[in-house]
């Protein structure tokens, strides 16, 4: 019996070992690398339909396949270009009429969709109708709802000839070109693919004009794009790009170290130093992102401007950025997100000054302090470490006598309730958002977008602010628009409608083999110039 047992154990060991040695070697062992790039994403992407897609994760994929008329130059890092420059993409040039209401686009000739069908003014018109014309056979309710900001002042489109198209607006809209360059806007999808497969098919069969085309998708495993050999511009250097959803931050880091992915997004702040020592590149930028508190104007304490200002003064943003989040974010002193023309990092509203906060509270007869509720999600897209940040804020506010109770919810519940606004018992909530267009100020602070139903969750409404925002949106010249945006920002910050906390710097950890990857001042990036150093 004893012998049988021993034989059995030995057999087990030997077979296990044999199995191990017979296995294909792990990627680390003297592997040669093909011309492919593997990216570990922080979550699963949603629909690969550029009009319908919801999250930034998806937009980073769609951006490689679909192109707009006017785009942003994402080949430059944030340091080279704080605001991504607008560049012609599918439109070779464009001009705007004297009254600012008619945009004429001269389209690029000789461009073909990935399915071989030609790109022309009719194709653009088809896409516009898909998003704006409810009577159009291929009108898409979801795409229309997701892209509505682009169409705020839209009147009609008009095909002039095969390569010329006019878009008529019912009011001048200075940010229209920038809005066209955003994702969830007018990316051009092959009309033929929609006619053949229907509106719902775009997500499974995305056909655009970009430098990469869709190859295959296995949910939970990979989304694979391949080089578009017939691209109209400079062709991509990579043959294949694989996006892998990897929701657990620790295993993203392990997969990077084990050479199973080449780039990871959103590394845990604690891991960054170690990864840098191990020879990985840490790249970051200044994308349009701001993590901010929204004060609830239905709450009795928060209606007092001095209280809102006091809270702004009481928060140690440098501490949050450098100690808590280890420099993966920068302190935010304005609600305007980086990457937009009116963002000025040297202009700092409400630098840390707890004494001043106490003075302001005393003036408001609240020197004895008060209790208030802060709502936050526990996770979510772009939210960084919301509970840790909220706890830091709780400690800071305690120092000036304000007792904060945290009310935490998981992301879906939180986000779906966000645009419903807050109950009057709630003092403030938090969100993270941003745009390279200063129009972002309207999104968060205009009374048109007040909750319920809008992104202005605190119900801040000021006639003065509205007027400045409207004048900025409808200004005819860029200079005039810029001046108005700045005034609006000044007004919103003086009113202290929000307490901006930090800007994400969107760190990516990149294997040194990967060359040409750049983090621009945008929430997404281009992979066209990236190559693998063999």
């Amino acid at each position, binding site marked *: 019996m004893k012998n049988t047992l021993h034989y059995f154990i030995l057999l087990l060991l030997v077979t296990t070992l044999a199995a191990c040695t017979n*296995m294909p070697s792990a990627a680390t062992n003297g592997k040669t690398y093909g011309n492919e790039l593997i990216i570990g994403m922080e979550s699963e992407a949603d629909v690969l339909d550029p009009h319908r897609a919801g999250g930034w994760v998806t937009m980073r994929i769609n951006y490689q396949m679909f192109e707009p008329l006017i785009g942003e130059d994402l080949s430059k890092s944030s340091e080279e270009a704080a605001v991504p420059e607008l560049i012609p993409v599918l439109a070779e040039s464009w001009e705007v009429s004297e009254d600012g209401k008619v945009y004429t686009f001269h389209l690029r000739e000789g461009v073909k969709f990935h399915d071989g069908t030609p790109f022309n003014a009719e194709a653009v018109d088809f896409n516009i109708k898909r998003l704006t014309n409810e009577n159009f056979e291929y009108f898409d309710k979801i795409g229309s709802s997701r892209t509505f900001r682009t169409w705020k002042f839209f009147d009609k489109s008009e095909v002039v000839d095969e390569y010329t198209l006019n878009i008529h607006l019912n009011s001048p809209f200075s940010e229209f070109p920038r809005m066209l360059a955003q994702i969830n806007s007018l990316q051009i999808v092959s009309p033929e693919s929609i006619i053949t497969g229907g509106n719902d098919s775009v997500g499974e069969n995305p056909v655009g004009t970009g430098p990469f085309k869709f190859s295959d998708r296995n949910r*939970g495993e990979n989304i694979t794009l391949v080089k578009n050999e017939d691209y109209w511009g400079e062709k991509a250097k990579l043959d294949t790009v694989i996006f892998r959803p990897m929701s657990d931050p620790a295993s993203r880091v*392990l997969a990077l170290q084990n050479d199973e992915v080449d780039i990871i997004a959103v590394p845990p702040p604690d891991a960054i130093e170690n990864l840098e020592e191990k020879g990985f590149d840490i790249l970051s930028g200044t994308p349009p992102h701001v993590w901010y508190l929204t004060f609830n104007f239905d709450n009795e304490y928060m209606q007092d401007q001095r209280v809102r200002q006091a809270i702004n003064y009481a928060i140690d943003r440098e501490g949050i950025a450098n100690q808590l989040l280890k420099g993966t974010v920068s302190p935010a002193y304005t609600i305007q997100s980086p990457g937009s023309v009116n963002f000025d990092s040297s202009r700092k509203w409400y630098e840390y000054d707890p004494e001043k906060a106490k003075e302001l509270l005393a003036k408001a007869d609240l020197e004895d302090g008060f209790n208030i509720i802060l709502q936050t999600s526990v996770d979510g897209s772009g939210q960084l470490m919301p509970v840790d940040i909220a706890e830091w804020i709780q400690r800071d506010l305690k120092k000036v006598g304000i007792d904060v109770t945290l009310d935490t919810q998981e992301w879906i519940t939180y986000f779906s309730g966000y645009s419903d606004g807050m109950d009057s018992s709630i003092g403030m909530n938090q969100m993270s958002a941003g745009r390279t267009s200063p129009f972002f100020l309207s999104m968060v602070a205009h009374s048109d977008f007040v909750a319920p*139903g809008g992104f202005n969750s605190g119900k801040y409404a000021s006639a003065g602010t509205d007027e400045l925002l409207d004048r900025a949106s409808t200004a005819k010249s860029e200079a005039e628009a810029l001046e108005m945006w700045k005034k609006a920002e000044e007004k919103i910050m003086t009113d202290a409608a929000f307490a901006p906390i930090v800007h994400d710097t969107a760190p990516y950890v990149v294997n040194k083999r990967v060359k040409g990857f750049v983090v621009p001042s945008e929430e997404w990036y281009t992979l066209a110039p990236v190559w693998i150093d063999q």
Partner: protein
Amino acid sequence: MTRFFINRILSTIPVLLGVTIFVFLLIQLIPGDPAKSILGGDATAEAVESLREEMGLNESMIVQYTSWMGQLLQGDLGYSHTLHTPITEELLPRFLNSMILTVASLLICVVLGVVLGLISALRKGSILDKASMGVALIGASMPVFWIALMLMWLFSLEMGLFPVSGMYNMRSPGGWMDLLHHLILPAFATATVSLAVIARLTRSTIIDTLQKDYVKYFQSFGLSKSKINIVHVLRNSLPPIINISGMQVGYLMGGALFSEVVFNWPGIGQALYVAVTSNDYPTIQAGILLIAITFVIVNLIVDLLNVWLSPKLQDSIKSNAG
């Protein structure tokens, strides 16, 4: 006997029916409006309302339930709200991936668990016994995701033996050997806790059985020790071991969800998580239903297996029927 089997199989029908009702009601508890999450945070109220109408969300719950059941009975799981693809296409491959992981870990924990338990019981009090039971105790106390990370660190980063993510090598996908290579760590991580449970139960059951009079009786006849141990002791200790192994299937499926996250195994757990986060009701319903059905089937198999293996139980069924 046949009647017993048929009855036992028929008795799963009300259970499954109950599951469908429960799943359907559970979905109603998920916060958020699916129409709103499809259209995005800025959707107008009219757009949300018209989409709700289109999706049939404004119908009464009874109407929604019966139409869902009608589809189910025709083998149609419906279309995903968010992906607009047939759920069967999305969920079945993911479900199979989860099953690969669950079955692999079941094999590991049953085979190793029984072997370890048997050795410990036969060498009761020896160093081997103490060592394996000590390991079992530690194993049973470790959370799956922690074991997973430790395995990844030791066997992948330090020793370079195994990959840490996915089912296939993305750079040069291989066949089933590649799959096996990717399967070993997550399967072990998932199996550890159950392995410990099975090992300990096997040990105590066999020690119990060894005390039985008939074992002593056989020994007095001079039957060889290994024959008694394998043919009689193990055979008579099987029912509790099979029972606990069957129960572990549920635990393993739960544990597999953790392994799926840490090892990026494209299983049904991740699919369900994504479905829940996007309020994709039909997919959530289908996913939970698939898991519940698996559960019911496993329990059924365990019951039938026990009866088939145990003459005692067969006798009592016969006399009851008689």
